[in-house]
C-alpha cells in the first residue's frame, strides 16, 4: 500500500528547525527518546519501545544437527518480520530490501560480534547442538528501527533460559522447567546499537531521528558498542561523506548511550528474576494502560448465565428445523422462481422420494411431517445434559468466587495458582527420547 | 549479448563466408589468435587462462577434494571430474544475477557428457582411485570473464591447459582400525635438515594428450565455419557442439558427442561435413597445444597474468 510522499514544505521546515537546534518533539539534537522495555511472562520474550517504534523479540531453541565445518558450535539464527502493522508499505511474508538490510545488520551486531558463547550450546559434538532462533517482529515504525530491534533481541536473549540437558550414552534427556531449572544462555557482552543521523556533509549530528527526520537527513551511521567500551559494529548505511573526526565523535556518543541502556536492560532482567523467584506470576505484556486515556476500556470478568433453552424465546421461523437433505434453492431467487428452477425442484422432490423408499426405516425427518413429539424428546435430553453441568460440585471452574462484579484492576483467575496439574503442557515439557 | 547488425551487413558477411573469406580475413577453418597462460592462480591445484582474439576470456581453476564414496552404490566407476561453468557479470550486464546460469549449465552438461568416458580416454586418470571408497575428486571450475562467441572452444582449451598444469599429491594408503583407511601424503626421504612439513610433497601429473575437446561448428548459408565472432553468430543457421577426442593407438580422432546448440535445420550431409571439419581443426589444435605445453612457463617473478 502506498505511503504519502514527503512534501518539500515539510522537508524545508524540519531542516530549518534542525539547523537551529530545534526538533518537533522538543528534544535537543543529541537527546534520545524515552526507552520502555517490558519482558514477557513467557521466557525469552521482550517488547522494546523507543518513542513510537515498537518491536517484539522472541527467542526459542531446538536441537539440530551441526554443520560439518563446525561440529562443536551451536547456531544462532536471526529472523525479522516486517508486517503492514509497522508500515503500510510492507506486505505479509515478504522481506523487502529493508528487511534484508535489517537482518544483515542484526547478524553483524549479535552473531558476528560473538556476544553469545556458541561452544556452550553444543550437546554432543557432531550430532546434537542447540539451534537458538531469535524472531524479531516489527510492530510500529518511527525511526531508529535497528536500535529498537537490537535492544529487544538482546533483552530477549538475556531473559531466555534453555531447558537443562543430561547426556546419556545412547540418548539425551531434556528436562522440563519443573524437573530441573532451565539454564540461561552464556552471554559475554551486550552490544547496544545506535543510529546517528548526519546533516549537511556530516558536520551536524542528529541523534535517534524519527522517521520524518530521517527522510530529510543526508544519511546515517550505525554504531554498536558494549559497556566494556568496545566498538562491535560500525556501518555507514547511506551515501554520505564524513571525516574520521566525525566518526570518532559519533562513536563516543554511542558509547555513552550503550552504558545507559545496558543498565536499563540489566535492571529489567533482575527485577523480572526477583518476581519469578517470589513465585509471583509476572503480568508480562497484558495491558496496564492508565484508565484516564479515553481510548482504553476494561471490563471485569463476568458471570455468563446461559438461559435454559426457553421455549418461547425463539421466533418460530427462526428455529426452522433443516431437512436432512438440503434443497439448494438459490436465496436470491426467493421471489422470482424462474422456469428452469421449477423443473429443478420437481427433480429434487422426485429424488427425495426415491431416497426415502430405498432407505426404508431411517426417518428422513421432514419438518412438517415429523410433528412436535420428536422435538419435545430432544429438549428433555438437552435439559438433562445442562442440569448435569450446574450441579457438579468439584467442577474445575470456581465460578462463585468471581461472582463479585466490582471491577478489579488485576484479576488473577484463582484456578491457576492453587494446584499445578502434572499434565501441564507449558512450553516444551515433553520428555523426549532422541 | 545481442549484437545488432543491419541486414545488408548480414548479406555481405554471408556471401563472404560462402566464398571462404570472413570479415576479419580468416578462412572458415581458422581460429582467432589464442593466448594460453598456465599456473596463473596460486590458490588452485591447477589453473589456466585462455583468451581468444583479444575478447573471449576464460579462466579455469581446478581444486582437488578427497572424496569418500560408497563403492557398492556405484556400479561402474564414476568419472572423478565435475565441471561447472559460470558466466561472470563482467562479460556483459545480461549475465548479472541469474542471467548467465542457464547458458552456463548447458555448457557444463556438455562437458560432463564429453568427459564421461574420461577414465578410459586419459591413461593415468585411474590413479585417482586411491583405495576402497576413497578417490580424488577433480573440481574443474570455469569463469567466463569476457564473452565474444565460441565460449565452449575457449573453455575446452582452458580445461586442457588446467589439467596439464594440475599437480596431484602422491599418497600412501595405510589401513587403519575399524576398517577405515588413513591417507598420508608421501614425502620423499631427503635426510636433510628441513623439518618434515617443509619437504615438498611428491606430485604426479596427468597425461592430457588425448583429452576430449568441444568445438562449436556453425553453418552460415552453405558454408561451415569454426570459432564465430558475435557478428557471425547473428547470421548462423544452426550450430553444433561436437566433442572430439584424440585416439592414441590409431592416431585418428573419435567423436565423443554431438549436440545441437540452439535451433536450425540440418541435412545429414552437412552434419557429416561439419564433423569432418571439427576433427580436422581439432588435429591442428592438438598440435598447437602440445607445442605450447612443452615450452616451460618462463615468467618474471611478480609478473602476473592478464597484464
Amino acid at each position: 500500500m502506498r505511503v504519502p510522499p514527503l512534501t518539500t514544505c515539510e522537508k524545508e521546515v524540519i531542516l530549518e528547525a534542525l539547523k537551529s537546534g530545534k526538533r518537533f518533539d522538543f528534544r535537543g539534537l543529541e537527546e534520545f527518546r524515552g526507552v520502555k522495555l517490558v519482558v514477557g511472562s513467557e521466557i525469552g520474550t521482550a517488547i522494546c519501545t523507543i518513542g513510537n517504534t515498537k518491536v517484539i523479540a522472541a527467542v526459542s531453541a531446538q536441537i539440530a544437527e551441526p554443520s560439518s565445518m563446525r561440529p562443536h558450535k551451536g547456531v544462532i539464527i536471526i529472523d525479522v518480520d516486517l508486517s503492514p502493522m509497522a508500515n503500510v508499505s510492507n506486505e505479509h511474508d515478504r522481506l523487502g530490501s529493508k528487511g534484508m538490510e535489517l537482518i544483515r545488520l542484526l547478524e553483524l551486531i549479535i552473531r558476528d560480534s560473538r556476544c553469545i558463547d556458541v561452544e556452550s550450546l553444543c550437546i554432543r559434538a557432531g550430532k546434537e547442538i542447540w539451534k537458538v532462533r531469535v524472531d524479531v517482529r516489527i510492530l510500529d515504525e518511527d525511526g531508529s528501527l535497528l536500535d529498537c530491534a537490537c535492544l529487544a533481541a538482546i533483552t530477549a536473549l538475556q531473559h531466555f533460559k534453555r531447558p537443562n540437558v543430561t547426556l546419556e550414552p545412547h540418548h539425551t534427556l531434556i528436562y522440563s522447567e519443573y524437573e530441573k531449572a532451565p539454564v540461561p544462555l552464556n552471554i559475554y557482552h551486550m552490544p547496544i546499537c545506535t543510529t546517528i543521523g548526519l546533516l549537511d556533509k556530516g558536520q551536524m549530528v542528529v541523534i535517534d531521528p524519527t522517521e520524518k527526520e530521517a527522510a530529510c537527513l543526508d544519511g546515517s551511521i550505525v554504531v554498536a558498542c558494549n559497556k566494556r567500551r568496545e566498538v562491535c559494529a560500525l556501518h555507514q548505511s547511506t551515501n554520505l561523506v564524513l571525516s574520521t573526526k566525525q566518526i570518532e565523535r559519533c562513536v563516543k556518543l554511542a558509547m555513552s548511550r550503550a552504558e545507559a541502556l545496558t543498565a536499563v536492560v540489566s535492571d529489567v532482567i533482575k527485577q523480572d528474576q526477583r518476581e519469578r523467584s517470589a513465585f509471583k506470576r509476572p503480568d508480562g505484556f497484558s495491558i496496564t494502560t492508565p484508565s484516564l486515556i479515553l481510548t482504553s476500556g476494561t471490563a471485569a470478568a463476568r458471570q455468563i448465565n446461559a438461559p435454559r433453552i426457553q421455549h418461547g424465546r425463539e421466533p418460530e421461523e427462526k428455529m426452522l428445523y433443516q431437512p436432512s437433505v438440503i434443497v439448494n434453492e438459490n436465496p436470491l431467487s426467493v421471489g422470482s422462481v424462474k422456469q428452469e428452477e421449477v423443473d429443478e425442484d420437481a427433480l429434487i422432490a422426485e429424488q427425495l422420494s426415491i431416497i426415502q423408499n430405498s432407505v426404508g426405516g431411517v426417518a428422513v425427518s421432514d419438518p412438517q411431517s415429523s410433528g412436535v413429539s420428536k422435538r419435545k424428546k430432544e429438549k428433555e435430553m438437552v435439559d438433562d445434559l445442562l442440569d448435569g453441568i450446574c450441579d457438579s460440585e468439584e467442577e474445575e471452574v470456581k465460578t462463585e468466587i468471581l461472582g463479585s462484579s466490582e471491577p478489579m484492576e488485576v484479576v488473577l483467575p484463582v484456578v491457576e495458582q492453587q494446584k499445578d496439574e502434572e499434565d501441564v503442557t507449558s512450553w516444551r515439557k515433553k520428555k523426549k527420547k532422541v | 549479448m545481442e549484437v545488432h547488425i543491419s541486414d545488408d551487413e548480414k548479406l555481405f558477411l554471408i556471401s563472404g563466408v560462402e566464398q571462404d573469406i570472413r570479415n576479419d580475413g580468416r578462412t572458415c577453418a581458422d581460429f582467432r589468435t589464442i593466448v594460453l597462460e598456465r599456473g596463473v592462480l596460486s590458490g588452485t591445484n591447477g589453473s589456466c587462462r585462455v583468451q581468444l582474439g583479444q575478447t573471449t576470456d576464460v579462466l579455469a581453476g581446478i581444486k582437488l577434494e578427497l572424496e569418500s564414496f560408497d563403492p557398492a552404490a556405484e556400479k561402474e566407476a564414476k568419472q572423478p571430474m565435475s565441471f561447472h561453468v559460470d558466466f561472470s557479470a563482467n562479460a556483459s550486464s545480461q549475465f548479472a544475477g541469474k542471467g548467465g546460469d542457464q547458458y552456463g549449465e548447458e555448457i557444463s552438461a556438455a562437458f560432463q557428457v564429453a568427459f564421461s568416458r574420461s577414465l578410459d580416454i586419459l591413461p593415468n586418470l585411474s590413479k585417482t582411485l586411491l583405495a576402497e571408497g576413497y578417490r580424488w575428486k577433480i573440481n574443474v571450475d570455469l569463469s567466463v570473464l569476457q564473452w565474444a562467441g565460441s565460449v565452449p572452444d575457449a573453455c575446452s582449451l582452458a580445461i586442457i591447459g588446467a589439467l596439464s598444469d594440475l599437480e596431484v599429491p602422491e599418497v600412501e594408503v595405510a589401513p587403519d582400525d575399524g576398517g577405515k583407511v588413513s591417507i598420508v601424503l608421501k614425502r620423499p626421504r631427503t635426510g636433510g635438515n628441513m623439518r618434515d612439513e617443509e619437504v615438498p610433497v611428491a606430485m604426479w601429473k596427468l597425461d592430457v594428450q588425448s583429452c576430449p575437446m568441444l568445438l562449436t561448428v556453425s553453418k552460415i548459408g552453405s558454408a561451415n565455419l569454426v570459432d564465430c565472432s558475435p557478428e557471425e553468430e547473428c547470421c548462423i543457421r544452426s550450430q553444433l557442439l561436437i566433442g572430439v577426442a584424440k585416439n592414441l593407438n590409431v592416431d585418428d580422432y573419435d567423436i565423443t558427442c554431438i549436440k545441437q546448440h540452439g535451433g536450425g535445420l540440418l541435412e545429414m550431409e552437412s552434419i557429416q561435413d561439419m564433423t569432418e571439419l571439427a576433427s580436422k581443426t581439432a588435429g591442428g589444435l592438438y598440435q598447437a597445444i602440445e607445442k605450447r605445453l612443452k615450452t616451460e612457463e618462463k615468467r618474471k617473478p611478480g609478473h602476473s597474468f592478464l597484464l
Partner: protein
Amino acid sequence: MAVYLPGDVINEPSSSDSSIIGYGINLRGEKKVVTQPGAFRSDEGKIWLSVHSKRYIPQEGDRVIAIVTSKTGDFFRLDIGTAEYAMISFTNFEGATKRNRPNLKTGDIIYATVFDTTPRTEAELTCVDDEKRARGMGQLNGGYMFKVSLNHCRRLINPSCEILQTMGKFFKFEITVGMNGRIWVNAPTTEEIIKIHDVINKSEFITGEDELISLVQHSYTRSVSG
C-alpha cells in the same frame, strides 16, 4: 449522546421518517441501519453519525489538501491519502490559460475541492469555484503540513469549537484544515510552527475549556529546547 455500532438500528425519537439520512447510516426498508461506528447526531431534520477514523474516503464538495506527485500530459497527479490517485487539470486553477500553466513541482501541496468521485475512476479536484475564482484555494507555499485524524479536523473546523480561537490569542498564525486529515500551518518562525503543531496534536483529547487554555498557555511559554 448515544453511540451506535454497525449492525444496530436507530430508533431515536428525533429521527422521524422525514429526516435526511446522513453519514454512516443506511436506509434498509424503513429501518435506519448503522454502517459506521460513531456518535448519533441530529440537527433540524438531518441525522448522521460523527465517526472517528484516520483513512479519508473522498466525498464530493470536501475541501482537501493534496500533494503533487507527478505531471502527466495536461493533468497533475495528486495524492490525497486515498486508495486511488486524484487528478487536477491545469485549467482548474485561477487565471490558468493554455499558455501560462501553474508551475507545480513534485512535492508541492495545494488546497482544492473534490468535485467528481465516480467509482472506478480517479477523483477529480478543482481549485476554482463556478465563477472561476479561487476563494482561498490553490497552491500553499511555505509553512508545514502534518496529518491528524479526520474527526479532529472536523472538530477544529466546527464554528462552536474554540481551540483555534484560544490559540489565536497567543500565536499569530495562518492555518488551512483539509477534510482528509491534513493540516497546513504557517507562522513567522519555525519555533512557533513547532508549538502550534504540538498544541493541535495534544488538543485532540482535551475537552474542558480551561484545560485547553492551560495547554495553550503552557506550550506558548515553554521554550523549544536546543
